């Protein structure tokens, strides 16, 4: 059985949390004591039925205000699949929390309120989905109960979104009319929308194939920790511990260590009490090399026949996530896998106007702004382009005055 990680997005009050609650409720994933807590809660729907949104709105402030502030993670499984859900906030103020939930997912459910159609937040979140390279999108047109379950309403929203999807290069987009509140097309197909011939949301999620994701063949392993027991029996033991980001390392593969450029051969691959013939993407292992090269945390071991880019000047998309605006005159820290180095944003190439998706020149970058910049790093980074290899093409910016994570970077090109 494999895991599907997905998240909900869309504007405030479009029904994201209710939809997750409905999915859990209708799959019998809510246990008796949790249900009892829901029944005892004083947040109820207008008709007195339980408010399913409070299953994920776990903070006091969220329950009081009736909105989601930070991402909640929920887990459930059916006979076919395990699911990790991130329920993210729709409010623009909390966009950074939406990006947090989205960054580890491989499928997005974008909710649209059938009464309002595609609004600015729908566009913003869809744009972020495309920047983050999330290949699978479900557009759930919600609150169909408030629009008489009308096929016409659904179709007109679908057409509107199709234009947006094309503009954003979203390839695999599926449309489902739902009512999160009443449960239509969430787990069971709705009798009230017999004009809809597609699958229910759950059924779709159970069988969607996301295996084609993150399948970069480029072998990369950032070294997180060097294991040197230095005991009598293991006097010369020196193993490089890390998680294979992408590709495969086989025994006897020729490798290069970056940034030093030293080359060697894979001598041994260990995983706790086992020795392996190969280490694949996703595995946390220990690699031994034939030669005594100088390697420490922050270095990357790569296949010698497919080297990454290596430069100190990178063009990247930036999402700004801090209340303090970007300051192009100061130094930030950039964290790329296990490496952290100083950097500056040396140039803002453009900023994107979310409503029109047009690119404009800009000289300031504030909370929730998205655009293209040039990053100048103190040490060269060994990276791949985000679209080629998500895992080795992303980084975060840290403000060393506050230690906060202030930006998300997706590498698009190295600057000559």
């Amino acid at each position: 059985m494999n895991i599907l990680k997905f998240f909900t997005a869309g504007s405030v009050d479009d029904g994201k949390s209710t939809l997750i609650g409905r999915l859990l409720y209708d799959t019998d994933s809510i246990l008796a004591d949790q249900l009892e807590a829901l029944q005892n809660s004083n947040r109820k729907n207008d008709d007195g039925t339980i408010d399913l949104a409070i299953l994920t709105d776990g903070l006091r402030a969220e329950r009081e205000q009736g909105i989601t502030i930070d991402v909640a993670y929920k887990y459930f499984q059916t006979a076919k699949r395990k699911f990790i859900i991130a329920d993210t906030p729709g409010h623009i103020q909390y966009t950074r929390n939406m990006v947090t939930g989205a960054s580890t997912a491989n499928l997005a459910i974008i909710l649209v309120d059938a009464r309002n159609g595609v609004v600015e937040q729908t566009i913003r979140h869809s744009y972020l989905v495309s920047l983050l390279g999330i290949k699978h999108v479900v557009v759930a047109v919600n609150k169909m109960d408030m629009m008489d379950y009308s096929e016409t309403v659904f179709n007109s929203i679908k057409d509107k979104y199709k234009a947006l999807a094309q503009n954003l290069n979203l390839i695999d987009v599926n449309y489902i009319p739902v009512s999160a509140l009443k449960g239509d097309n969430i787990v069971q197909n709705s009798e009230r929308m017999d004009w809809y011939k597609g699958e229910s949301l759950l059924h779709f999620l159970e069988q969607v194939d996301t295996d084609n994701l993150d399948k970069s063949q480029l072998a990369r392993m950032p070294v997180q920790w060097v294991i040197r027991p230095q005991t009598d029996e293991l006097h010369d033991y020196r193993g490089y511990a890390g998680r294979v980001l992408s590709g495969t390392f086989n025994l006897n593969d020729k490798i290069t260590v970056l940034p030093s450029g030293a080359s060697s051969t894979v001598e041994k691959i260990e995983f706790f009490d086992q020795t392996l013939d190969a280490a694949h993407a996703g595995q946390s292992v220990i690699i031994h090399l034939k030669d005594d090269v100088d390697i420490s945390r922050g270095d990357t071991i790569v296949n010698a026949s497919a080297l990454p880019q290596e430069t100190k000047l990178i063009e990247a998309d930036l999402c700004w996530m801090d209340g303090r605006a970007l300051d192009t005159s100061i130094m930030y820290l950039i964290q790329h896998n296990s490496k952290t180095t100083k950097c500056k944003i040396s140039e803002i190439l453009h900023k994107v106007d979310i409503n029109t998706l047009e690119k404009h020149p800009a000289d300031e970058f504030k909370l929730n702004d998205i655009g293209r910049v040039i990053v100048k790093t103190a040490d060269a980074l060994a990276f791949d382009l985000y679209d080629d290899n998500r895992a080795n093409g992303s980084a975060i910016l840290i403000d060393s005055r506050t230690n906060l994570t202030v930006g998300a970077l997706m590498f698009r090109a190295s600057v000559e």
Partner: protein
Amino acid sequence: MSEYNFDYLDELEAEAIHILREVAGQFEKPALLFSGGKDSITLVRLAEKAFRPGKFPFPLVHIDTGHNFEETIQYRDEMVSRIGEKLIIGSVQQSIDEGKVIEQTGKNASRNALQTVTLLDTILEHKFDACIGGARRDEEKARAKERIFSVRDEFGQWDPKRQRPELWNIYNGKIHKGENVRVFPISNWTELDVWNYIRRENIALPSIYFAHQRDCITRNGQLMAASPFLNMDDEDVVTNKKVRFRTVGDMSCTAAVESDADLIDDIIQEISESKISERGARLDDKVSEAAMEDRKKGGYF
């Protein structure tokens, strides 16, 4: 490319090992909070997988309420000597003796809340900058909101409204002096995942997780082990029952469930069919809707 089998437990395991190694790489003085429960026992196995044949780059820290199940302490001591790692004990009794906290009184008295003070003192005394814990997001709705690297201020407080973005698998462990980070490598595991992992890895557990005969009383609808740590009176009727524990904490706040499951397969079967959550057996969470959130804001695990 050779075919390989990488199922969901392998994926969760590899993620947790990655997180543990990030802690080793990013912090000066980390610690692993070890309670003697199944989640922290799982963490120890994951740490072995992350760092063997080397030593752990951190000690184990047990915040000892003094109201433990005997079996847990015995397990702890045996395990520590088997793995050959350092154990530091922070004692709630000592915090009481030093007058830093005051023992609760009354029928529902528990040392659960007092632990936070001892924990923060232990962090301060040893200057720990990161504490690894076995909390999982599926346990409780406030935990479902917490980051894997969760920054606490000088007073140990969690501020749920000001969490840092946490993107991809990149964890920002930068902090100011006095702050520390709580790190939760098994955030994405469910209770059942932990049990399936324990079965797969053949990990030994304290015997109280398996069905056994025990003297119990009923408190607030929950079955509690009769012990000198419960303030019992004439109303409490002691009956001997076959029980096991689903989660293990302090004796005064951990409830038992009636069960015949004395093998791990039976336990997994029982949990798969159970209609009650794991935390349903914790009195500490029953206090109010925001009980866990409030404790976390106060510096709890």
